[in-house]
């Protein structure tokens, strides 16, 4: 690896402060619409290319341009990638928030800021580096219209100098970003170089933080969860996609469109082996999915909380009429419009029981891009095998942020299409009863519309029906049907992805978490052990309905902390519905619901304070 790594002299540090290597969070405060995304992504990628485990979180407003945005990059030699509460470095570019951002820094932190903001006066326990961004950008970017965008690259260069980021890695990252647009690469790199040179000439390194190359990211990829879901759908063999734009889910379908156009055109005919329709609203998007799923397609939609609310009626129809369908819910903060660009796990109970009557749905809950990929494929298989809607429960943090990941493994299992009878089978059987539990697993056999034969057709309805799919209001028919659907849910309990367990042997304290909370829990487990000598066991849920192993896990432990990124402890309460009374008492709750991804310290503090009450 070519390196221009900068060695800092120990003597340059303020006395008594040790060098801190590969363990820092950088917060970049900008105005949205100012083009900082490129600079931030390039910075993240450069650190990743240096082999240092890294994560990036974009905290952005629900707005096109002009409101505050914060991007946090965490580099961690220990591989922690959850959000951290505090930062070692601040890049203050936004006049609106600069004072507040500086005042929030912990003592000893460093701040790069736009010279005009004159932030130095605010603190004397923070190391300041003032940069004249406007003066520096003018010579490297003669085109005035581009200056606003390019000027952000200057802080990449300044950070590169101050932290020891290899400039060559910045260049490689820029090439990745702009592909063949060499002019854009050069323009942006020159701006970064200007920042680097300015820092070399002007600054004395006075903070202890630095980055040094490691070998912890070799063979890994960087991807956001929404792209990973899109890839999952692509390799799941999705055929019909209908959607309505909503943050933070839109990029699932937008990315999917790009992949489908590239990889799913029939080579012989030049025609599409898929159909993607942007519907007029979520009511129509889910209706099209239902129509397509009924007709045999592997059909999906992607949405977020408000869209899910609109899809409630049709999802209940899908449950009762038994229609395979996949719904990606990239959760954001509610209630109502809520905080559209902030993250939460707020749709757990709603989706599990979505729609009126006794309705229950399968939820698959990825924690990483890799699981976004694998569980998306699983979702299409389960939907067709169990003939029911299946939710993939991602969230904004997972969906819209860039994550390090191992490359995705190619699916091993062939596509599962479930119990579908063809014309010959129907003829041989002398007909079939659509909703009859032939195999004892609650799942009936179906035919696909278009299957020839006088006995192959049947009538699907959301109103009461008997096992022959005929309209029925008879009490016995209704009960039989509902009991069969309950049996089918038990089949789902066995087929859904199992939880992953970490058993530490001492069965006192345990944590249950799901989705993106996983990363903060992993760090919290280390904190609990190191700081409190608490060896907690851990169970990560990956699906609803819960498998038996989850109940056994709770039964085995004395105190079980359930981590929820919502106010009402939704997963804890969903568990309570199914637990024995003695086990219900063991559940305790760690709740995090401020719109930011949960951090390890919040979980650790929450557990420690409740443990103290014992």
């Amino acid at each position, binding site marked *: 690896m070519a390196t221009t790594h900068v060695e800092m002299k120990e003597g340059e540090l303020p006395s008594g402060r040790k060098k801190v290597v590969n363990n820092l969070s950088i917060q970049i405060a900008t105005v949205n619409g100012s083009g900082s995304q490129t600079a931030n992504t390039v910075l993240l990628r450069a650190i990743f290319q240096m082999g240092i485990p890294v994560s990036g979180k974009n905290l952005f407003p629900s707005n096109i341009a002009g409101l505050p945005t914060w991007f946090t990059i965490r580099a961690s030699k220990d591989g922690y990638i959850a959000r951290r509460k505090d930062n070692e470095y601040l890049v203050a570019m936004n006049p609106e928030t600069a004072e507040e951002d500086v005042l929030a820094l912990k003592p000893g932190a460093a701040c790069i800021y736009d010279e005009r903001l004159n932030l130095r006066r605010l603190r004397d326990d923070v190391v300041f580096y003032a940069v004249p961004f406007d003066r520096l950008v003018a010579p490297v970017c003669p085109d005035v219209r581009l200056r606003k965008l390019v000027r952000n690259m200057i802080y990449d260069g300044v950070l590169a100098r101050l932290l020891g980021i290899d400039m060559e890695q910045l260049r490689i990252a820029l090439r990745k970003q702009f592909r063949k647009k060499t002019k854009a690469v050069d323009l942006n790199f020159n701006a970064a170089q200007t920042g680097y040179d300015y820092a070399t000439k002007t600054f004395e390194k006075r903070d202890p933080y630095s980055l040094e190359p490691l070998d912890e990211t070799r063979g890994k990829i960087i991807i956001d969860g929404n792209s990973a879901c899109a890839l999952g759908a692509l390799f799941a063999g999705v055929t019909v996609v209908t959607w309505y734009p909503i943050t933070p889910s839109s990029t699932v379908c937008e990315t999917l469109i790009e992949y489908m156009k590239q990889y799913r055109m029939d080579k012989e005919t030049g025609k599409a082996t898929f159909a993607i329709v942007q519907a007029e609203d979520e009511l129509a998007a889910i209706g099209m999915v239902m129509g*397509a799923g009924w007709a045999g*397609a592997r059909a999906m939609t992607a949405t977020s909380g408000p869209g899910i609310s609109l899809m409630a009626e049709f999802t209940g129809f899908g449950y009762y009429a038994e229609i395979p369908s996949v719904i990606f819910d990239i959760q954001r903060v509610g209630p109502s419009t809520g905080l559209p660009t902030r993250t939460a796990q707020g749709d757990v109970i709603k989706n599990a029981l979505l729609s009126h009557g006794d309705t229950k749905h399968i939820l698959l809950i990825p924690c990483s891009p890799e699981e976004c990929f694998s569980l998306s494929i699983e979702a299409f298989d389960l939907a067709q095998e169990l003939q029911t809607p299946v939710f993939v429960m991602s969230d904004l943090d997972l969906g819209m942020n860039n994550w390090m990941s191992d490359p995705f493994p190619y699916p091993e299992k062939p596509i599962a299409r479930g119990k579908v009878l063809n014309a010959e089978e129907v003829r041989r059987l002398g007909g079939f009863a659509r909703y009859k539990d032939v195999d004892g697993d609650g799942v009936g056999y179906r035919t696909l519309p278009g299957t020839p034969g006088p006995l192959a057709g049947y009538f699907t309805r959301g109103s009461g029906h008997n096992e022959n799919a005929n309209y029925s209001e008879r009490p016995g028919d209704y009960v039989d049907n509902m009991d069969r659907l309950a049996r089918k849910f038990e089949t789902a309990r066995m087929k859904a992805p199992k939880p992953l367990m970490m058993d530490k042997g001492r069965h006192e304290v345990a944590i249950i978490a799901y989705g993106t909370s996983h990363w903060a829990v992993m760090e919290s487990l280390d904190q609990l052990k190191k700081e409190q000598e608490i060896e907690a066991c851990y169970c990560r849920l990956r699906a609803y309905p819960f498998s038996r192993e989850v109940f056994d896990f709770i039964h085995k432990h004395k105190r079980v902390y359930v981590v929820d990124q919502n106010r009402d402890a939704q997963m804890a309460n969903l568990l309570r519905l199914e637990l024995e009374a003695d086990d219900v008492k063991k559940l305790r709750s760690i709740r995090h619901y401020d719109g930011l991804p949960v951090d390890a310290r919040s979980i650790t503090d929450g557990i420690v304070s409740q443990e103290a009450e014992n």
Partner: protein
Amino acid sequence: MATSTVPPASPAKVNRIGLQVLDYRGSKSTLCAGCGHNAISERIIEACYEMGVEPHRVAKLSGIGCSSKSPAYFLRSAYGLNAVHGRMPSIATGAMLANRHLIALGVSGDGDTASIGIGQFVHLMRRNMPLIYIIEDNGVYGLTKGQFSATADIGSKLKTGVVNDLPPIDTCALAILLGATYVARSFSGDKKQLSALLKGALAHRGTCMLDVISPCVTFNDHEGSTKSYSYVKDHDEPLADVNFVPYFEDIAVDYDPGTTTNITMHDGSHILLRKLEESYNPTNRTEALRLLTESRERGEIITGLFYVNPTQENFLDLLNVTDEPLATLPESKVRPPKEVLDEIMQDLM
């Protein structure tokens, strides 16, 4: 005396694919005796039988309401889906995306279409998806016992004496304006016209919108109603005499090109429109809209084929969807090989 012989039973009459009318029937109707919807079901059975439609290719789709129950009463061996209120268009769209070989036959009502379902209706009309959309239009909610829908005429009176004070939505004018390519209005009591219009719809590859006035004998067939049998009979002004000649029959009908318009449909069938009064060109969208506006102002219920465009590109072709049904494409066509995943992963490193 010679041995008496029983004359051989005359073989049951079959259509061109060897099916009897019986094969196109459904279960017994549970709608009121005399309901216009039952007559429409009869015309659907007749049209499908005479056209030789393969029942298994038909997807019968509906929303909620009296009208939406009726797909159970025709084409027993077809595939049916009775969805949620006002959402038949999205179900039909999804089914056609999944399998373009299907014949989507949607049945809706005036409430299901013009009230709760108007959003999906207008967007469906924009797409020109190949399907038939029938509104069984009686201006009133039956299952909830007689409230006005959005196609009820202003001034029309309910049995309870309540007078409708809002103007109706003209679903035909909307459909024409938005892009549907086969738009007609008919009357459940006009067997000949409705049958010909249904056959024409079966021959079309685009969105067919048929608003069929279908009186509700229980809640809207009284003095003061503008959707009663007697009112519609008195005010029905057929635009033309509609004749349909399927592609598998020769055009043996003599017609005068001066008074009759011959429209060649997508499958080679012909619709012959013998004008009854003034000259009318059913391929002109502007003229169709003018006709509907003027006849409404005159208080007439004009019926017939208002607009047809047999060559407009349909939604599936616009999407460039492959000829085989997407629903049954083999894994080799829908799951890219491992090399593709490797290539994508490499790019993300």
